[in-house]
């Protein structure tokens, strides 16, 4: 992903992409996280004020790259 910043926090004018397992919910033990559905595959997006088309395009190109790397879907 190029557009959102990969960081902690939320609610800012710019989009922020967080990884709860290592960031906001790192203080919660793994089994407690899993109980709540906060898996290691979960990402949290704080949607900013950028143009939504640009963000959607960014997701598309990023997911496209994943597919090209031939990781099992």
């Amino acid at each position: 992903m190029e557009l959102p910043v990969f960081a902690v926090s939320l609610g800012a004018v710019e989009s922020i992409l967080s990884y709860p397992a290592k960031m906001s919910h790192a203080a919660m033990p793994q089994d407690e996280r899993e109980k709540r559905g906060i898996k290691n595959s979960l990402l949290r997006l704080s949607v900013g004020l950028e143009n939504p088309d640009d963000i959607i395009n960014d997701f598309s190109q990023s997911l496209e790259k994943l597919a090209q790397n031939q990781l099992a879907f």
Partner: protein
Amino acid sequence: MYKIDTKLAQIGNRSETATGTVNPPVYFSTAYRHEGIGRSTGFDYIRTGNPTRQLLEKTIADLEGGDQGFACSSGMAAILTILSLFQSGDEWIVSEDLYGGTYRLLEQGFKKWGLTSHYVNTCYPEKVEEKINENTKAIFLETPTNPLMQEADIEAISKIAKQHGILLIVDNTFYTPVLQQPIQLGADIVIHSATKYLGGHNDVLAGLVVAKGKEVCEALAFHHNGAGAVLSPFDSWLLMRGMKTLSLRMKQHQTNARAIAEYLSNHEAITDVLYPGQGGMLSFRLKEEAWIDLFLQNIRLITFAESLGGTESFITYPATQTHADIPEEKRIASGVDNRLLRFSVGIEDAEDLIKDLEQALAKVNEGVYRLN
């Protein structure tokens, strides 16, 4: 290439890689260490260049589609910096309906050093062309004009300017690059009183210049540094902070202004509403000059003040405030009469604003009734 909303929301992000700071740092230092002679980091002295100010300058150049940006200590400082490009004997053609401060700088400032300005209604390109002679070096446009809200055809005028080899300078304060990008329409230089919409929060005094073309940019850079009316690092940062929500704010300003223009057009106490259909600025005339003071005393939500472009609504009385420096006869003849009020419509709830206008106009009506 990203859309303008996106560019604005992310101003300054990723500018610093040492720590990954999202919000850009403010560099206060006036001096920069060199390892030896001729070994500069690119920064020598704050007046010439400052990393925080440079970020702002690159940002506005990108937003306006220009080659280079220059951040100044005020809108007037921005105009002053542009004026240093010219010399004694040069002439300018300027929008007749004009901010009083610009008029003052030209008539009481640069005129005595040999710069002559001709004021025409720039809504008529032929009137502009008429005034061009061998001494004309630039056309200075406000569009829409302050405060009569008249729009000029930038593209048409830019063609005339190019034909005659003269510069086209556009004051884009009212519309901002969100609504209008003069360089894309053929202008050479764009200026902003960034104090207004760009800052958006009535908390920073600043001016911006953007230019297109190698020679113009080099000359501006030379005078920007030479005259030194540059914007401070903290103010540069504060301005960028405000600009992040510019797109969002302009949308609300416009939605509100449209609703209010409609409301005022239907009110019996109002004789004219001047609104170009976009943006957040509009002007209107009360039926009687005598009602102005009473009206201004009775608005509660809307503030009677100079300036414009902030989140809160302001009403200004050009006759005694923004256009007080224009000789009365000339001012009234041009349409900026004593019944005219200029409204910078804020981002409050439109209904609340309309209710405030309603109650103030009702009080005026009562007052008039009592007097009669």
